C-alpha cells in the first residue's frame, strides 16, 4: 500500500527533475549538438512514457491486488500477449537504434567537406597540447627522442625539419567559428579523452593511434574540456579550454603566435 504510493512519488519526482531542467545540458554550439539534443529529447519522451507506464502499473498492481481476503486468479501466462509485447518492444528498441545511428554516422563516417583547419592534439599525464601548422600549412616531423617538456617541445618536433619550425603550440585549443576543423588525437602515455560538452562530442585518445575527430563550432565562447578517461592520479586536474573565435581573430592569433620565438 505505502509502497504503491512511494513508487508513484518517486516516479513523479524523477520525471519532474527531468522536466525541471535545473541540472541539464549546456546550450548546444553546433549543428551536431543540436541534432543530439533533438534525438535525446525524443528518446526521453518515449523512455519517460515507458517509465511512467511501468512504474505506474507496478504501483497500481501493488495497490489493487494487495491481500484483501480475495482469492488470487490462477493464470500461468498468455502466449499471445507474450508475442505482442515482444514484437512491440523489439520494434521500439531497434527503431531507436536506427534513428540514433544517423547522428553517429554524421560524426564518424561523413567524410564530405574539406577541413581547412587541422590541429594535432597531444594528451599526456596530465596536460594538453595542441599543434597548428604554421604558414606553410605543414606539421613538422616528430620523434619521441626529441620530446623535451622542459624545452617546450612536448611533441618531440624534429628541429632538423624546416616544416616544423613554424608550428604553433598551444595549451588551450582555439578554433575559428563556422569552419570545419579536423583534430588528430594522439596520446603520449595512457588513454585520455577529449570531451566538449557544448559540442556533444567525446573521443578517447589512445596511445599508438591517431584518431580523427571533426566538428564545426558555430558559437563564439570559451568551453571547458575535462579529460574523461581515467589516466592516473591527476585525471581530475587534466582540463583545458576550447576557445571558439571569429575567423579573423583566429588568424590574427595564429600569426601572433607564429612570430613568438620558440
Amino acid at each position, binding site marked *: 500500500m505505502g509502497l504503491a504510493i512511494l513508487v508513484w512519488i518517486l516516479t513523479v519526482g524523477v520525471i519532474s527533475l527531468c522536466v525541471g531542467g535545473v541540472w541539464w545540458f549546456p546550450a548546444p554550439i553546433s549543428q551536431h549538438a543540436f541534432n543530439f539534443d533533438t534525438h535525446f529529447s525524443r528518446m526521453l519522451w518515449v523512455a519517460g512514457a515507458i517509465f511512467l507506464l511501468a512504474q505506474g502499473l507496478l504501483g497500481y498492481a501493488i495497490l489493487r491486488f494487495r*491481500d484483501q481476503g480475495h482469492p488470487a486468479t490462477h493464470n500461468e501466462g498468455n502466449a499471445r500477449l507474450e508475442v505482442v509485447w515482444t514484437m512491440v518492444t523489439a520494434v521500439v528498441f531497434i527503431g531507436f537504434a*536506427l534513428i540514433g545511428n544517423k547522428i553517429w554516422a554524421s560524426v564518424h563516417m561523413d567524410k564530405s567537406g574539406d577541413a581547412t583547419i587541422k590541429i594535432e592534439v597531444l594528451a599526456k599525464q596530465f596536460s594538453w597540447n595542441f599543434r597548428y601548422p604554421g604558414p606553410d600549412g605543414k606539421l613538422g616531423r616528430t620523434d619521441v627522442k626529441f620530446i623535451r617538456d622542459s624545452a617546450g617541445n612536448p611533441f618531440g618536433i624534429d628541429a632538423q625539419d624546416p616544416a616544423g619550425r613554424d608550428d604553433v603550440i598551444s595549451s588551450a585549443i582555439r578554433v575559428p567559428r563556422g569552419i570545419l576543423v579536423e583534430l588528430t588525437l594522439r596520446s603520449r602515455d595512457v588513454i585520455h579523452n577529449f570531451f566538449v560538452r557544448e559540442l556533444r562530442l567525446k573521443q578517447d585518445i589512445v596511445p599508438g593511434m591517431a584518431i580523427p575527430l571533426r566538428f564545426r563550432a558555430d558559437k563564439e565562447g570559451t568551453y571547458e574540456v575535462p579529460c574523461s578517461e581515467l589516466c592516473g592520479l591527476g585525471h581530475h586536474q587534466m582540463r583545458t579550454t576550447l576557445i571558439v573565435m571569429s575567423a579573423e581573430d583566429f588568424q590574427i592569433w595564429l600569426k601572433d603566435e607564429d612570430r613568438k620565438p620558440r
Partner: protein
Amino acid sequence: MKIFSTDHKVIGKQYLTLAFFSVALGIVLSLIMRFHLIRPDAKISWFATLWPVGATGGIMTPELYLSLMSIHGTLMVFFVLSTAPQGGFGNYFLPLQIGAPKMAFPVLSMLSFWTTFLALMALLASFAVEGGAPLSGWTAYPPLSALGQVAGPGQGLGMDCWIVSIALFSIASLMGAINFITTILDMRTEGMNLMRMPLTCWGWFVTAIISLLAFGVLLAAGILLFMDRNLGTSFFIPAGLVVSDQLQNHSGGSPILWQHLFWFFGHPEVYIAILPGMGIVSTVLSVFARKPVFGYRAMVYAMFSIAILGFFVWGHHMFISGMSPYSSIAFSLITLAVGVPSAIKTFNWLGTIWGGKIRFTTSMLFALGFVSVFVSGGLTGLFLGQPAIDLYFHDTYFVVGHFHMIMGVAAIFAIFSAMYFWFPKMYGRMMNDNLGQVHFYLTFIGVYAIFIPMHFLGILGAPRRYADFKELEFLAKSGILQRITTYSAYCTAAAQLLFFGSYFYAKWRGPLATINPWDATTLEWTEPSESNVVNHAPDVYSLPGEEKDFVMQSDQ
C-alpha cells in the same frame, strides 16, 4: 562446523559470509569516497592512521581516492554480486530445490570457495603493499594498468595483487560453473525435468553457463596483462610511450585489445550478477502473490536469449574507444535487442502479481523494489546503448548512476529478498518482519536518493573517476547534487545496520520457523529447517491442552 567443509549448506553460508564482509567493506569505502567528494580538503586524523602515505596529515590524496574506488568496484562486482547469489544461495539451495542430496562434486565446491577466499585476500593485500592499492578502476585499462609504478603509486605491486586476485577468482568461478552445470544436468531427482525446475534453478544454470564461457577469457586477459607488466612483453603496450619523461621499452601492442577481451567477459559478467537475482525475484513474486509465474517458458527463453545475445554486445562499452565506427552500429543494434528479453521479464513480473493476492512480507517488498529499480536502471540503458548518445554520456556520472541502479542495487535487492525469504530455512528461525519493513523502505528511498542525482550530474557532463570536482567550473552549481548523494549514502548505509542487527538477532533469538512458513511449493520447503533446536524431552505424548497427542522435540 568444520572450516574445510564439503557440505553444500556450509559452503553456501561461507560464500554468503564472504559476500557480507565484502559488501560491508565496499560500502565503507564508498562512504569515504562520498565524503571526500563533498569535502575534498577535510583533514581527518584517522585517515592518516589508516593510510600514512595516501593521506599524509589526514588529507586524502587523489591517488588514494582512486584506489578506494578501484577496490570498491572490484569488491562489489566480483566478491559480492558474483558470489552471494550464485555461490551463496546457489550452493545452499540448488541441491535442495532439485532434490539432490548434494552438489555433484562437494570437494570442488570447497576448493572453489577457498580459492575465492584466497582471491579476496590477494585483493586486500594490495592495501598493504608498497604503493598501495591499484588506481585503474575495476576495468584496469592498459597502458595505465600495464606500465607499473611510473603510472601511479598503486600501479606497482598493488596492481599485481589485483591481477592475481582476479585470476584466482576466475579459476574459482570456473570450478563453480562446472559443478553447477553438472549438478543440474545429472543430479535432478525423479520427475524433476528441466521444465519443472524453479526459475531460481534456471537462473543458476544460465549463470553457470555464462561463467563457464566468460571467465576463461578474463583469465587469459589477466595473464597477458601480467606478462606485459612483469616479463616485458608488449601485448597491450604500444611503442614509444613517454611516461613521466621516461621512454618505455615496449613495441607495437594495442590498448584496445585489452578492452575487447575485458568486455567480452565484462558484459556477460553483469548478467552473472543479475540472472540469479531474476530467478529469485520471479520465485518470490509468485509465492507472495499466490499465483504461478506468468509465462514460465517465456522467462526461461528470455534468460537464454539474454545469455546468448549478451556475448555479442561487449562493444557498447567501447563506442568512444577508437574502435571502428561501423562496428559500433552493429553493437548498438544487438545491445538494444538484448533489451527486449529484459523488458519481457519485466512484463512477466507485472503479469505475475496481476490478479494476485499479495502478501507484503519483507522478501516480497524487496522483490517489488527490484522490479522498480530494474525498470529505472534499464531505461537509461536504452540511452547508453546508442553510440550517438554515448558521445556525450560515456564515462560520465550518468553511467555510474545507470550501472548502480541496474546491476548494483537490483542485484542487492534480489540478495535481500532471498535472504529474508530463505532465512527460516537456513537458520530455522524467522526474521522480524517489522524491522524488515523499515529496512526495506529506508533502503528503497535511499538508493533512489543516492543514484538518481548521479544521473543529473552526468547530464551536466561530470566525468566519473574524478577525485574531486573543484576545478570544473561547469559543476560549480551542482554541489547540492553531490551533497544529496553523500548524505543519502550515509543514511542508507546506516539503515543496513538494521539488517545486520536483525539478522544476528534472528539467528540466535528469532522465533522458531515452521517447515514451510510461506506456504511455498518447491522442494526445499519439504525438508526440516536447518539447525533443529531441541526444546524438551524426547517423549512428549498426550500433553494436556495440546491439539495433537504428540509434540515433536523441535516444536515448542
